[in-house]
């Protein structure tokens, strides 16, 4: 396998979201001494400088990081602007309450969340996932909130009825070990091969490292 030190360091820098110091790199490559690592980084830098790609290996904040060259910034900004926006926890909770309790008063949302939600409601109205559906027949005729068609689109729902009920999710339960352990006696039977081959992949679901974070 062709893995030079340079390429290993390149891979590390590529997969990191912050600048890496020599020390950071060394922690993944304990046998390498720091001068060899800094030499490798220098070589990588020169290589990228001469390749004239859209990004360079820059020294920043005491570490090293791949950065796109500044002339590409306008395109990247444009892409970021249209890329999917995340919702804050507060916004998500507010949206969830409206989805399940609609038509609902702001007062009711605030009772459930325990905080003022005026600003968040405005943001969600602007994003087009909530709308005002009417007024309640109460003193002051307060506004009632509900979800929009765009809400259905965002969550890929055919209609509000297909919104899963809380109960249905709770019914799924949690995943305790659903396998069953069996002790097998007998000496080294080879037929277990297939079994063990697959078993090596087995591990718990709730490791810290799931890739699934959206």
């Amino acid at each position, binding site marked *: 396998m062709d893995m030079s030190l340079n390429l290993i360091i390149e*891979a590390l820098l*590529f*997969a990191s*979201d*912050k600048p890496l110091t020599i020390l950071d790199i060394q922690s993944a490559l304990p046998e390498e001494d720091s001068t060899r690592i800094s030499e490798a980084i220098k070589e990588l830098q020169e290589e990228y400088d001469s390749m004239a790609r859209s990004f360079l290996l820059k020294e920043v904040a005491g570490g090293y990081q791949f950065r796109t060259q500044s002339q590409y910034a306008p395109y990247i*900004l444009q892409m*970021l*602007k*249209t*890329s*999917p*926006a*995340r*919702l804050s*926890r507060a916004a*998500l*909770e507010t*949206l*969830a*309450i409206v*989805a*399940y309790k609609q038509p609902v008063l702001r007062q*009711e949302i605030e009772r*459930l*969340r325990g905080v003022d939600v005026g600003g968040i409601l405005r943001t969600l109205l*602007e*994003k087009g*996932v909530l709308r005002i559906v009417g007024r309640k027949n109460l003193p002051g005729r307060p506004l009632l909130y509900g979800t929009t068609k765009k809400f259905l689109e*965002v*969550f*890929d*729902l055919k209609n509000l009825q297909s*919104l*899963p009920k*809380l109960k249905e*999710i*709770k019914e799924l339960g949690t995943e305790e070990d*659903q*396998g*069953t*352990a*069996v*002790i*097998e*006696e*007998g*000496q*080294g*039977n080879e*037929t*277990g091969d*297939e*079994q063990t081959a*697959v*078993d090596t*992949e087995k591990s718990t679901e709730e490791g810290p*490292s*799931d*890739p699934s974070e*959206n």
Partner: protein
Amino acid sequence: MVYEIKLEIFEGPLDLLLHLINKNEVDIFDIPIATIADQYLEYIEMMKVLNINVAGDFLLMASTLVHLKSKMLLPESNDDTVDEDLHNEIVRPLLEYMSYREIAGDLSERDLLERDVFCRQVPLDFRSHIKEEGAPLDVNLFQLIDAFKQVMDRTLPGVQLQLRLEQWSVKEKIEHIITCLKEKGTMLFVQLFVEDRVVSEYIVTFLALLELVHMGLVRIFQSTPHSDIKLTPCFEED
């Protein structure tokens, strides 16, 4: 005799059956049902001896196997029907299971993201960049449900506090029930709770109803067990 003890995890009855078939080196289309059934039961027994919780799915398969075995041993049994049962209840499910298991194996051999391959990680300050108005939202349904669950979980522990604040008093609820009964005459028990939002409110409504029954102002009926419970007023219209 020294036994080498090996701990195996079986995902379910099919997994265990498949293991036995491999171990005995028999053809899946020609399963010696008596042998396999005996070995299967031995495993189940062993699980019990070891105090391993045997899931119902394992027992169901055990009874299927025993049933097939006994059918086979009956002198008057018809070979064809035994074969058919064996095919439908054992062979077919096993074949299907095998094919998906193979796919699962193929899947796990692929270059898995964050196990074998890694993509770029975008720095946080990039993410919080101001979005255009129409930008799509990066959120999925499960996150929405989860957020709602969290809100509800947080709300419930507040029950006692709300009771102390007497957000809903029994007196108010009594008045409410009387008003409803005056309007509608007869009501279903469940209709009482239509507007209630949280557990504490349900409790207060229920207490109010008990109080009304106690005072002889409301009567409760249920014609048959599990049928709807009905409420009728026993007070004069005013």
